[in-house]
């Protein structure tokens, strides 16, 4: 591992923090075409429990398409999906939710007029006796989850419209924890945030890892990626072209992989010309 920061895509060598060799989520040979556009070609993907994977690539590389396939919004033309080694079919968003796969989209999907507790439990309310909402137990549970994630907000009874961007992002993520997520996908979680709020969200992602979740982060911001992720998976033109361990690589080399400057076409080149940083 000394110099070579690139491993083959399906290498099970990754020391998942739970010590289990089988990835929490694994996709093999995923292809997806939209008409004439081959959005994904024979892509493999894996994320382990207690690991944060950064999914990067230029515009149109296929990141969103891959996330949509995992979250059930799109179905792959071919390929297989395994959860803890068991083959699964993700036929729709609700199937993904049932499997413990939760996605936080960029628009966050919060109801601004509802308070934090109501948003966290929306669609999964707890009841005292039918049909009465159990506000006390929901509020306790909300506070517990938010404290695990080290989220600070003025009150869990303010409408989320009063919260900052980082706090709103935190609420959206906390929602996935409440649903007993096992895999959390985050689409550009820091894109719209300032410096301090980005810090909050990166902190949050670390908390998710501590909770033993498998976390996938799509991001354009390599500084953020390098701060929180364990591995970076690079897509280019619908193919997985490289995988880096962040401990033993540099942002320059990732950029090179994204733009295609470093590698002619395919994966294998074993970190050959590590210097070429610009496209």
């Amino acid at each position, binding site marked *: 591992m000394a110099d070579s920061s690139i491993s083959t895509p399906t290498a099970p060598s990754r020391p998942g923090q739970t010590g289990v060799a089988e990835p929490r989520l694994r996709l093999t040979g995923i292809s997806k075409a939209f008409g004439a556009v081959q959005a994904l070609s024979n892509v493999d993907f894996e994320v382990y429990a207690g690991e944060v994977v950064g999914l990067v690539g230029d515009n149109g590389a296929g990141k969103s398409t891959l996330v949509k396939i995992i979250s059930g919004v799109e179905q792959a033309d071919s390929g297989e999906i395994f959860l803890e080694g068991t083959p699964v079919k993700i036929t729709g968003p609700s199937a993904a939710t049932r499997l413990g796969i939760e996605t936080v989209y960029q628009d966050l999907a919060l*109801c601004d*007029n509802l308070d934090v507790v109501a948003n966290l439990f929306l*669609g999964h309310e707890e009841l005292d006796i039918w049909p009465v*909402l159990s506000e006390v137990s929901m509020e306790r549970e909300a506070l517990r989850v938010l404290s695990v994630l080290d989220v600070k907000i*003025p009150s869990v009874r303010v409408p989320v419209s009063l919260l900052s961007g980082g706090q709103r992002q935190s609420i959206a993520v906390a929602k996935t924890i409440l649903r007993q997520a096992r895999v959390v996908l985050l689409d550009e979680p820091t894109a719209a945030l300032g410096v301090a709020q980005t810090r909050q969200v990166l902190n949050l992602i670390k908390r998710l890892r501590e909770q033993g979740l498998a976390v996938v982060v799509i991001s354009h911001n390599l500084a953020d990626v390098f701060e929180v992720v364990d591995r970076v998976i690079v897509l280019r033109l619908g193919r997985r072209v490289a995988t880096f361990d962040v401990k033993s690589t540099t942002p320059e080399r990732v950029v090179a992989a994204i733009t295609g400057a470093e590698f002619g076409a395919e994966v294998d080149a074993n970190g050959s010309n590590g210097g070429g940083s610009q496209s």
Partner: protein
Amino acid sequence: MSEAVKQKQPAPTTSVEVPSRLPRPTVGQLLRTDLGFVPVLLTLLVIAAYFALTTDGLFLTPRNLSNLVLQITQIGVLALGSTLVLLLGEIDLSVAAVSTLCSVVMGVLTERQGVSAGWAILAALVTGALTGLINGLLVAFIRIPSFIVTLAASIGYSGLLLYLLAGQSTLIIHDTFIVSLANNYLPDALGIGLPTLALLLYIGFVVFNYMRRKRAGLRTQPLPRLLLQIVTVAVIVEGAVALFESYLGVPQSVIFLTGLILLCWLLLTKTPFGRYVYAVGGNAEAARRAGINVPLIRVAVFTMCSTLAAIGGVLAASRGLAVASQIDPTLLLDSIAAAVIGGVSLFGGKGSVWTLILGALIIGSLENGLDLKSQGTDVKEMVEGVVLVIAVAADALIRRAQARRGR
């Protein structure tokens, strides 16, 4: 685990809620909270004071106030339905037509067909529910904008009720049960007992809730605020009862109106259904992704709105001792105005049901006061138009102020 958890006692509040982080609320935000009713209440008091002064106190006599409350029963019940629909971010322009249609259905059945009052009223309510179901299905599944659907419905039903009345312009209601509905006053025992019982239940619930939150280690309101809240509600309830008792007693129709508002309030604030109504009005896409059956909520709310309109129609027919082919031209706008003046946002997701009483009282006071001053329909309609525009403008301005502050 996290240092936040170790930090202090197990009470989770300490680590998550940091009140100092709350930005100071703007005026616009305050107007959307518990205190939102204050400006409306002040407006009502100003109007009441003006009429009291200019009618030599006639306006504030128990007799007149009692009548005023009877006059706003139909508007109040229709405003309640409108509120539900507005919370969804939709609008129902058919409430007045549906209300009148349902009263005609009831009137024709009892007076011409000899159907008993109970069945006739049931038929009126079912008619209302059906019209609402149709509105709801068209809005929820065909995705036609609600103002078009309900405008078309309104026109269609005003034709239908002409057809049902077969040329007759006014059908007198003789049925004693129907007439008694809105014209009876409760005997003192019930008139004082029922509201007082409800008040005691409310106080019990508030105190129980306070204790329960305290025991669960959750934040509670400061005790003085809690007491103030209880005292305010008690004064309003018992004050109203005293006012009615100093004339003929508590009118039955007031119990219908407040009972319906109470039911809707419970439904909206204490049950998942109510939460979903607010969620759909706030962000329908988020509600859908949360697994909420958005079309079902829409259909249910439109159905409830039209059913309430039917109840309003029955009460109006009872009070007026007749059903008419002419739909009261200001009924629709008055109902929506009562909801909006009461603080329900035209943009969905914000507002509560109790304040519509204030809205209906403002509208009723204008009507009643201008009547006392022997002003004609011309002046009345102009004044009401201005008041409605002011209320809607306030809603839009508050919303804009919030949007500027948001995020």
